């Protein structure tokens, strides 16, 4: 390693040139950087609901649905005109597979000679009677009414089913523009919702956040460095290290085609907050040693010889903590772990190359202000260690009380998350989604996929009956807006074919009694006969398909009637509500579905699974990262017991993190769970620094208590200082669009302070109380 450091110091220009080329390469890649807000992409295929969801995408023509809301006087001549105009504008979108609106929805009607399948509003109405007729016709197809007309009849929804190959972001952008144009010269108010639109806004939020984080991160670091070093090199060198690290990391992501997600958007801030520490460390030492040197190269050589190993060690433990996120099984979190680790690695490389190369080219300069500030902090740390030693019992009791109160707070933790509620209250997409959830059937969907083992399976009365019962059952559950399937169509056709007799608004029985009436020789003859329900259904469908188009059913059943789905629209995307519905549905399926293969999937189910997996995965990754940290520090200090000491402040920090969440009502969700894993990797540095120093002191003076102030005035100062710098870096995340990221920023900052506090409080008290032999041994080893 020393050879490597010499190589860098002897060849500063070559080093800088090489770094410049790498930076240019990765910066050029940035043009390919993409955003991806789809959380379901992250799921492993091995999950049944994900397999079903993918199968569903393959069977049915449309994956996602956008919703356009029209608010105005709907049942009026102008209202009808505007709605049907809007409908045809949407139908003209090449991205739309089909459009369903109160004007174009197909109405099935029994007529004298047969059935009629026609759009609800065939011609624009010109009189109040026409409006009345339109309204009546709509009421004949009750299945879709709740999705299309609001409960207060003040607004309508137009559903736009998108083709599978569509770039949904581009579509959403186009749609919003079109609606803007539309509202300029129409009376009604229009706005959009649905997953593609929500995702579009989330992508926009991610892009905005990245910009805000990056600029405010740079400004913050600039100000901090200026306060610390009051010199150009003190500001510019660390700043360059973090900016270039971020460029390399994002460039690398773009290069291998990984898009930025909701989770990975925080990477730049992570890298900046963590990466800055090493160069601050190096520069501090540089300034301390500067008065004793005349040659730049010699000064840099001394600094690097002394510091390269702690710099490498702390970077490695941080990386290990991040990589532990890989146990989460969630792709986007794995990416967060891997690319943050990559970023920390970049910062390490730059700290070991760029920093010495640049410094060795510059003339030696001596900073003044820095030492005064540090002197004040040192005085405080000495007083603090004095206080700890004198009042160790009270402090121990204090810590114990904090822990007990924490346990109480932790019991108040709740798991809750909602994608929509991540957005600020005044965000247009949150407002429109809440509007749809309030007045219409809802934006989140469960699907129950019925999988048959032969063609025509779905035409069986038994199967259709279960589907119908499932719908009626689901509609009674709270927060369910409506439920639909092919069964609704069959009931409508059955009724239409039997002269609109309401008693036929049902699925045909296994054996159906039918009659015909005819006249023979002036006598009325009534002939009764029996027919198999399955045949009747098949023929009803044939009649419908010849009257309209089989594609009318394409969103509900596949082309050869082997697989079908029941759509259940839910008015919320909150975990607890979705879980209740999910449980109720699976209970129903267990009880009522015998021999029929039916399973729950859909966006709602995937959301639930994503969240469950994340939380479970996160507990695992917390354990994994604690283990990794223990392992690395045990090897570093060559003692498994010292390894445990390193982990102790982390336990305290995590404990307090969850307690704060419980006390402030911050819910457990993906983002807040990740906090702990990240905090472990970063927070361990404080324990390492303190223990490292303490062992050295213990080795020289062989006294447990006297070593405390000795360690405090050196590494204690560095730790306090560092934890405030990193915490203020994380606080920037509070500026995010998303609530989860805001909480995360707050919690990360908090955990930095608490782990540092624990390292400087719990460890000293433990050491002077129990006087662990392992430390002494390590001290001796160190001395030898």
């Amino acid at each position, binding site marked *: 390693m020393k050879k490597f450091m010499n190589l860098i110091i002897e060849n500063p220009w070559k080093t800088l040139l090489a770094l410049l080329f790498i930076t240019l390469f990765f910066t050029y890649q940035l043009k390919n950087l993409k955003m991806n807000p789809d959380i379901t992409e992250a799921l492993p295929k091995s999950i049944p609901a994900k397999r079903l969801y993918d199968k569903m995408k393959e*069977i049915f023509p449309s994956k996602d649905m956008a919703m356009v809301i029209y608010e105005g006087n709907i049942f009026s001549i102008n209202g009808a005109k505007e709605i049907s105009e809007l409908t045809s504008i949407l139908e003209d979108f090449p991205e739309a597979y089909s459009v369903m609106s109160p004007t174009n929805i197909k109405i099935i009607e029994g007529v004298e000679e047969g059935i009629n399948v026609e759009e609800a509003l065939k011609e624009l109405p010109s009189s109040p009677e026409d409006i009345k007729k339109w309204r009546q016709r709509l009421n004949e197809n009750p299945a879709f009414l709740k999705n299309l007309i609001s409960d207060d009849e003040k607004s309508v929804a137009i559903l736009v089913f998108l083709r599978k190959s569509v770039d949904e972001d581009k579509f959403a952008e186009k749609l919003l523009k079109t609606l803007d144009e539309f509202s300029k010269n129409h009376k009604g108010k229009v706005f959009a919702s649905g997953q593609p639109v929500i995702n579009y806004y989330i992508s926009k939020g991610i892009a905005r956040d990245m910009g805000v984080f990056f600029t405010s991160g740079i400004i913050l670091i600039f100000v901090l460095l200026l306060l610390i070093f009051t010199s150009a090199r003190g500001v510019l060198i660390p700043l360059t290290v973090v900016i270039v690290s971020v460029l390399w990391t994002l460039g690398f992501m773009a290069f291998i085609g990984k898009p930025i997600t909701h989770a990975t958007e925080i990477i730049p801030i992570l890298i900046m907050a963590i990466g800055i520490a090493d160069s601050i460390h190096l520069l501090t030492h540089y300034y301390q040693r500067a008065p004793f040197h005349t040659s730049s190269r010699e000064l840099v050589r001394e600094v690097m010889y002394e510091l390269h190993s702690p710099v490498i060690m702390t970077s490695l433990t941080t990386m290990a903590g991040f990589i532990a996120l890989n146990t989460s099984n969630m792709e986007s979190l794995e990416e967060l772990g891997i690319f943050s680790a990559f970023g920390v690695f970049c910062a390490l490389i730059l700290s070991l190359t760029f920093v010495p190369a640049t410094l060795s080219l510059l003339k030696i300069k001596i900073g003044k202000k820095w030492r005064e500030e540090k002197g004040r902090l040192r005085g405080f740390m000495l007083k603090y260690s004095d206080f700890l030693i004198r009042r160790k019992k009270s402090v121990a009791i204090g810590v114990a009380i904090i822990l007990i109160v924490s346990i109480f707070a932790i019991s108040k933790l709740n798991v809750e998350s909602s994608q929509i509620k991540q957005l600020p209250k005044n965000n247009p997409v949150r407002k429109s989604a809440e509007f749809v959830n309030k007045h219409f059937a809802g934006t989140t969907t469960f699907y129950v996929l019925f999988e048959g083992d032969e*063609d025509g399976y779905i035409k069986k009365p038994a199967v259709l009956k279960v589907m119908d019962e499932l719908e009626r059952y689901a509609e009674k559950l709270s927060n369910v807006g409506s439920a639909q399937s092919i069964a609704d169509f069959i009931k409508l056709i059955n009724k239409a074919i039997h002269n609109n007799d309401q008693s036929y608004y049902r699925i045909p029985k296994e054996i159906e009694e*039918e009659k015909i009436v005819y006249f023979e020789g002036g006598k009325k003859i009534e002939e009764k006969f029996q027919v198999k329900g399955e045949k009747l259904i*098949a023929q*009803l469908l044939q009649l419908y*398909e*010849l009257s309209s*188009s089989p594609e009318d059913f394409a969103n509900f059943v596949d*082309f050869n009637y082997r697989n079908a789905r029941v759509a259940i629209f839910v008015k919320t995307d909150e975990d607890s509500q979705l879980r209740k519905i999910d449980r109720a549905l699976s209970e129903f399926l267990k009880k009522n579905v015998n021999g029929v293969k039916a399973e729950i999937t859909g966006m709602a189910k995937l959301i639930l699974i994503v969240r469950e997996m994340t939380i479970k995965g996160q507990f695992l990754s917390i354990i994994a990262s604690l283990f990794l940290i223990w392992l690395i520090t045990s090897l570093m200090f060559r003692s498994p017991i010292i390894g445990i000491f390193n982990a102790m402040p982390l336990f305290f920090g995590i404990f307090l993190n969850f307690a704060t969440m419980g006390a402030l009502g911050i819910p457990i969700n993906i983002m807040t769970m990740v906090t702990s894993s990240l905090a472990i990797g970063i927070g361990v540095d404080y324990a390492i620094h303190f223990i490292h120093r303490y062992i050295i002191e213990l080795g020289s003076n062989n006294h447990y208590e006297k070593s405390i102030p000795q360690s405090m005035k050196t590494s204690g100062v560095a730790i306090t200082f560092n934890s405030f710098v990193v915490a203020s870096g994380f606080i920037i995340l509070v500026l995010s669009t998303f609530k989860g990221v805001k909480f995360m920023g707050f919690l990360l900052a908090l955990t930095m302070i608490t782990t540092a506090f624990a390292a400087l409080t719990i460890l000293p008290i433990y050491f002077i109380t129990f006087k662990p032999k392992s430390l002494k041994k390590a001290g001796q080893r160190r001395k030898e």
Partner: protein
Amino acid sequence: MRKIINIIFIFLLIIPLSGENFTGIQIMEKVVKKTGWKDMEGEITMKITVRGRTRTRKIKLFSRKRTEDESDMVMKFLYPPDVEGTGFLLIEHAKGEDERYLYLPALRRIKRIAASGKGGAFMGSDFSYYDIGKPKLKDWNYKNLGLVDFNGLKCYKVEALPINKKIEKDTGYSKIIHWIDPEKWSIVHAEYYDRMGKIWKILEVKEIKNINGVWFQMHLIMKNVQGESVSEMKFENIEINKGLSPKLFTKRYLMQ
């Protein structure tokens, strides 16, 4: 002088190739004459594939020309079993909407089906009612685009444009291009363009058979290049110009 000879020579070469000796409508008239029939009887196997799922139907078909541009058609479903015995009757009207009826054995009743226009899908396939009928020469402006090579066959390429917006709306086509084999005067390939002017469907004729002097398209594939579907029609046991009884094309026969 040599130049002039060259030019004449080139012209001599081009003229027979370009097929300028026939106008578009003349070609189409020949097609109607050579492939037309008075009545026909046969079986069709129709395979419709949508998003990788195939539906097969077998049908017994009778058809006749009632007048110069009106036909009648009766279809009896043989397969699949759940629709076996259902019958479909189509009575075409040059003026006004066609009559369409379906006999449902499960209800022992005939139901009238509201006509969805000539551009409606035939049996839910990619063929429209218009595609399977005789070309209605009055509805289109034909233009001979010349003789071209088509899979090693010299064919006339004929462009058809609707004579008015109504035809365009009815059929859904803004343009059709036919490839016609001048030996059999049968359409061997066609491209259909939607109302936005984008290519929509491609017809491939896989087999043409001479039956009683009529060139009959035995095997057709219609591919929807915008969507995810393809339909295949295969004819069997075709008999032509037997003199079918008009009684076949009535509701009463449909129920038998």
